[in-house]
């Protein structure tokens, strides 16, 4: 009975696929735009930055030095490492990169106290861009996003409205990425659309 065969790429459904059109309709690049970046490769990485074996192994596998400064992001080519905690990172890469990166990590980390787990399907990513993006976030975020306090290359785990998110600033414009657990994605997307709605109204006199 091998007739039920699933295509592991084509048959995927991202958490916000069903909202794709709605998100597009709610977006206005001159104000704020919201869209899903589905299926990014994400790897949860744990290890001690004090362990030179670990740091070296990761450098070897990913071609980058993991960020040790709180809240920072290191990029190398298409791979980025997000600092999540003093012994915790999220490695983000394009769709499809996970198997290769994971096996490279597994090989390099052999015998090292570390953990690398594929979490590509654990969270989805929402891109939020446009001049009003920071203001939209400020409606539900207790953090300070002012350029003096945050900016491109910065990342943090926090709570947006009532959902836990990883927030990364990717551009000056500003542009942000919100990494959110699948089950919260619909809530968060709805919340963002609601928060952004007023910027599509004529301005308050």
């Amino acid at each position, binding site marked *: 009975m091998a007739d039920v065969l699933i295509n592991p790429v084509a048959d995927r459904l991202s958490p916000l696929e069903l909202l794709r059109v709605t998100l597009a309709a709610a977006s206005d690049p001159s104000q704020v735009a919201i869209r899903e970046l589905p299926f990014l490769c994400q790897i949860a990485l744990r290890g001690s930055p004090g362990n030179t074996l670990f740091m070296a192994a990761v450098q070897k596998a990913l071609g980058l030095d993991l960020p040790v400064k*709180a*809240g920072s992001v290191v990029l190398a080519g298409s791979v980025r490492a997000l600092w*999540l*905690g*003093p012994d*915790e990172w999220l490695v983000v890469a394009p769709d499809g990169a996970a198997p290769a990166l994971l096996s490279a990590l597994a090989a390099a980390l052999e015998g090292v106290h570390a953990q690398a787990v594929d979490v590509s399907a654990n969270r989805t990513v929402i891109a939020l861009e446009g001049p009003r993006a920071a203001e939209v976030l400020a409606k539900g975020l*207790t*953090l300070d996003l002012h350029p003096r306090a945050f900016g491109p290359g910065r990342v*943090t*785990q*926090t*709570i947006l409205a009532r959902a*836990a998110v990883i927030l990364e600033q990717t551009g000056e414009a500003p542009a942000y990425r919100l990494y959110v657990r699948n089950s919260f994605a619909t809530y968060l997307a709805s919340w963002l659309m609601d928060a952004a709605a007023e910027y599509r109204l004529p301005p308050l006199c």
Partner: protein
Amino acid sequence: MLLISCPHCGPCDETEFHCGGEAHVARPHDPAALDDAAWGAFIFMRNNPKGQFNERWVHAAGCRRWFNMVRDTVTHRILAVYPMGSRPPAGLGHLGAAVVEDAQ
């Protein structure tokens, strides 16, 4: 709304944290060796001072790390933040009687 300085992430709103009660209460090494009263004290008896309190917090919505803090329970002023497994800065807080020994 407290503003708490996570030792890793810096100042963040209280809503990102979770308070874990009194700090420096180590789990006994050999629970079986304790009588009911001593074991009961370990589970239930905690310091509850009016004034400086050594307490544990975790940056639950942020870096997920636990740390210690001395906070005044009357003014809500935060006097020190220090890592798990270390002693409070000299002259701050007072360790409760339940402290069998330091965790680490």
